[in-house]
């Protein structure tokens, strides 16, 4: 069974045409991989579908804009994957 990171990295590689071997858990989606907000919508869509969740992009963006969080907390891939795992777990707990 592939890890959350493997699945997310594959989604990013296929959605944004980025070589898979350049994507690491420490990659920052924006700063390192150059993914812009529009491309990230496609990634969010694919993640939402694949994991059966709804990434709270608006909430995250607001927190970053308000200085309550850093982009690293949400857009470094190992952190993004941890958030995805939390959302999947929360969904399973409420089901």
């Amino acid at each position, binding site marked *: 069974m592939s890890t959350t990171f493997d699945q997310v990295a594959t989604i990013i590689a296929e959605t944004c045409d980025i070589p898979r071997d350049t994507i690491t858990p420490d990659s920052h989606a924006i700063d390192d991989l150059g993914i812009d907000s*529009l491309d990230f*919508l*496609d990634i*969010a*869509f694919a993640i*939402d*579908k694949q994991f059966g969740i*709804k*990434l*709270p*992009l*608006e*909430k995250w*963006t607001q927190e970053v804009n308000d200085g309550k969080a850093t982009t690293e907390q949400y857009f470094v891939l190992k952190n993004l994957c941890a958030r995805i795992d939390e959302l999947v777990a929360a969904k399973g707990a409420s089901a």
Partner: protein
Amino acid sequence: MQLEYFHMIDRIVDLKVDEKTIVVEALVPKESTVFEGHFPGYPLMPGVLLIESMAQASGFLLLGVLKFERMPILAAVKEAKVRGSVFPGDLMTLEASVAHEGSGYAMTEAKIRVGGKLRANSALTFTLIPFPNADMRGYMTKVAERVGFPLQAVSP
């Protein structure tokens, strides 16, 4: 339909908020300055205006789903196919459905039929933003009233 003012939709025929679907109609005018250039001797609806029509149908659907609390803004045309020409005087029936509703964005699929025949289809992405000011919200309310948008039914 007033092409010069981007009034692409004439009437909402059916809006099902729970099912996230909409059907609207739009009568292509027989005369427009647009047709003077597109094309002399062979007037037909520009493909880009067919896409805009599908975007506006999708937009009214999203306004309904979001209870008029967010404004959908076209962000991406993922796919668009013009399968047949649309001419002055044609009555277009547009159908749209929400394919995915994310956080701050949504994706729709839309079709245009004339006389029951599929003429165009598209997959569209919208960002969903707060109304930037009262003027825009007021304008959209007037537009909604013009096309018979059921404002009462979707009031929060």
